[in-house]
């Protein structure tokens, strides 16, 4: 258990800046997720914390102890940092049995053999692999190998657990199951977890706090899952956390119009002054009606997906997506077909300054 403090860290490869002047603090015992698109430098940050890379500038400390500092040239090797790590490709050693894989960290720590056996079997049981300890990795499924990697990372009770997209190679069901299990384990063991992923669903489901990183390795927002989801600091964070609709809105005098059209904007007003705004909303925020108030729209595509109906709607030249529960569509006669006219109101709108779509931010 430890807090992690990253101060002004920079890292470049062959002249290309991956991270610059990045500061971040993880609290003791929290599950912290670093969320960002692939290639944004989040794995680099993880590897800096693990000690596989050394920072070009800044310092990193774990549990109050400086493990890497560019100023002093200090760089504690990974084996001395007392952490557990799970890799994207599991990295389960193919020549060792499940037991030997999991026991390896304890063996290196010269644990006395009785307690080594006990703790190893405990860790194997913890991840739900009891009875499979004699198997070789080649006899296990991908999900089981992932659990071996997890048990191996947990067995020596590390103060910090680093997870590098560990669920990426699993199928959807298994991914969901493992996600819950990691969360449950973290609650039981009370360790600090740093989880790196580009999957917003996992990030929202597992974290106490999320840091959203952009393409250039800069942190856009740090906060609790509902905070970053409901109150995104900017359009990048908003679009990264789910399917996002953006509707450009212009101000002329007192009136607001959609895009370049003559259609009036109806609904919640932007809290800022200025000529150009963008309304951001999720497909689930869209409320449809056959007629009445609201923005006028034309259904361009209708897909029935079982639990919900997915519509592509043209609002004054801008295409937006809407998702409605099927039962609601049936109950309220909202099963549209292509070409139908409809009225749109929005349950929640995030206002962003300027024309986000035209600026190419999305």
């Amino acid at each position, binding site marked *: 258990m430890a807090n992690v403090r990253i101060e002004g860290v920079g890292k*470049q490869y062959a002249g290309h800046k991956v991270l610059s002047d990045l500061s971040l603090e993880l609290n003791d015992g929290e599950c912290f997720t670093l969320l960002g698109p692939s290639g944004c430098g989040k794995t680099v940050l993880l590897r800096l914390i*693990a000690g*596989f890379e050394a920072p070009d500038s800044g310092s990193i400390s774990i549990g109050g102890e400086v493990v890497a500092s560019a100023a002093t040239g200090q760089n504690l090797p*990974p*084996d001395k940092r007392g952490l557990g790590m799970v890799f994207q490709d599991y*990295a389960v050693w193919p020549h060792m049995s499940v037991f030997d894989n999991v026991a*390896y960290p304890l063996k290196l720590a010269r644990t006395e053999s009785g307690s080594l056996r006990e703790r190893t079997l405990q860790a194997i049981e913890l991840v739900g692999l009891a009875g499979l300890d004699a198997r070789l990795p080649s006899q296990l499924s991908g999900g089981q190998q992932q659990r071996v990697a997890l048990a191996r*990372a947990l067995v020596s009770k590390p103060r910090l657990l680093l997870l590098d997209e560990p669920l990426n190679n699993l199928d959807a069901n298994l991914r969901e199951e493992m996600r819950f299990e990691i969360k449950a384990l973290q609650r039981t063991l009370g360790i600090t977890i740093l989880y790196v992923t580009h999957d917003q669903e996992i990030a929202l489901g597992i974290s106490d706090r999320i840091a959203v990183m952009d393409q250039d390795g800069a942190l856009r927002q740090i906060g609790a899952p509902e905070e970053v989801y409901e109150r995104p600091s900017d359009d990048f964070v908003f679009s990264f956390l789910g399917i996002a609709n953006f509707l450009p809105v212009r101000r002329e005098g007192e009136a607001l119009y959609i895009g370049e059209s003559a259609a009036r904007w109806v609904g919640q007003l932007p809290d800022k002054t200025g000529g150009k705004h963008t309304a951001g909303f999720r497909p689930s925020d869209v409320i449809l009606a056959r007629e009445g108030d609201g923005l006028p729209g034309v259904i361009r595509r209708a897909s029935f997906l079982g639990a919900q109906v997915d519509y592509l709607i043209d609002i004054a030249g801008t295409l937006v997506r809407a998702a409605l529960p099927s039962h609601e569509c049936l109950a309220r006669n909202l099963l549209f077909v292509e070409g139908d006219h409809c009225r749109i109101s929005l349950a929640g709108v995030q206002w962003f300054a300027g024309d986000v779509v035209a600026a190419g931010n999305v």
Partner: protein
Amino acid sequence: MGHRAALRFGTPELLFSLSVALLVIVVAVPMLLIFFNAFWVDGHFNVADVIKVLQHPETYKALLNSLILSVGVTITGTIVGTFFAWLVTRTDLPFKKTMKLLFLVPFMLPAFIGALAWKMLLSPRAGYINRFFMDVLGFDGPVFNIYSYAGIILVETMYLFPFVFIQVSGALERMDPTLEESARISGADLFTITRKITIPLVMPSILSGALLIMLYSMAHFGTVAVLGVETGIYNIPTLIYEKIHQSAGSFASIRTATVLATVLVITAALILWLQNRILSKGRYQIIAGKSFRPAELKLRGLRIPLLVLCIAYIGFTIVLPTATIFMVGGLKTYGLQFTAENMTWVNYKHILFEWDLTRDAIWNSISLGLSAALITMFAGVIISYVIVKMRVRGKGILEFLGMLPFSVPGSVIALGVILAWSGKFGINLYNTVWIILIAYIARYMAFSLKANSAALEQVHDSLVEAARASGATMAQALRDIVVPLVRPGMVAAFFLIFLPALRELTVSVLLYGPTTRTIGVAIYTLNEDGETVYSAALAGIALIIIVLGEVLIKRLVSGKNSA
């Protein structure tokens, strides 16, 4: 890392420097000395002299012979190899699996021992077959003279055709049968399909195998030395041997040898480049992936005659020469009839337990093979590790230097080693066993690099990082994770070196001294000295050792796979 890494001299840099130093000393210096000696005369660069050497009737003839022989062997070997490959993969020939294995046996047998056997059978006056025709059937002259271009080409074909056989049978097995089936549905008959679809698709494999035969035949010493030299047929390697060995190392003969070696290197490089190009062609991609079950041609009435042909071929090329070696090895005197009272075990006993020359040779070959295999295996692991796993600048040099000997014929390596280690640079290893060891290391390094790199590629970086994160130091991670995972590659490298080194002739024949004969050299020189019976007996023992070794490696490898 950045600027600090460039200045730091840590473990990666140390390993890198050691690897480069080893390869420069063992590989680069000898090669450069050959070119230097060939082109540098009286203190300046001289091409005119090189051309003069090439125009000398003796060298010119050797170049021409190398060309005639290798082209001849390539043509016959390709026809034989392709035909048998098609027969065992695409027809309903009986016992196809067994036949396929039998056709690979010639690969195990050293060609020069085969040449020895054929000399005993078909030399114009003393050959047993020729004598049978003359003495028993009353022929006027020999039915076939093995001391001829045709003789040499036939013998080399017997031992080199598997190059094409392996490539083509592999391609035919992996070829997607739907390619042929769709042609069939389009209305083509089997003949048209074979001509228009099958042959064009396997052509790259045929050509690539053919070029391997050419490469090997061009650089081949043994068969020509046994069958050609008697009647003045020299190719490049045998002339290099002649120049170095018989002319007591005069400057002119060394120069001729280096010029010949240069020609050989350039030709070999050209052949390999061509092969690479053919293999990397897009067309070859069609033959890839899993094995399918291709349509089989019904041989009908030809089934049994073709089986008989295969059996006859195997009997004629494998059983007959091998039996001849063992029988002649058991004769009291060469030339006697094979009757019970003429046979004896004394020869075998003599060479195994009494005669120092042969006992030395066996001991030398085994100890040289073992040490070369061990040294090259370990050096190969380290060098491959630097090439595959480490971020060090300039590791392309390592790759180039390590794979270079792959394209350099054995006689060239031996010549380079002579130039480098005969006292010119303060160290004289000539006539010692060490010079042979150095040459073997240079010759077989590429094998080790290939096997070890392949094994190391499988060891993903994250496996080592996972160990580091578990608390292992770099040394512990290497010991517990990397070494166990590359061990199969190391074992493979060991045998890939040990077995060929055991039967090696081309390199050691240029380097041996009075007490440093290898098995190959001993067999060859005994034969030259007219000790045919002992030569045959030693060849028989060599065959037993080789076959035992091959069986052992097969056991080991298949045991590993099933575990």
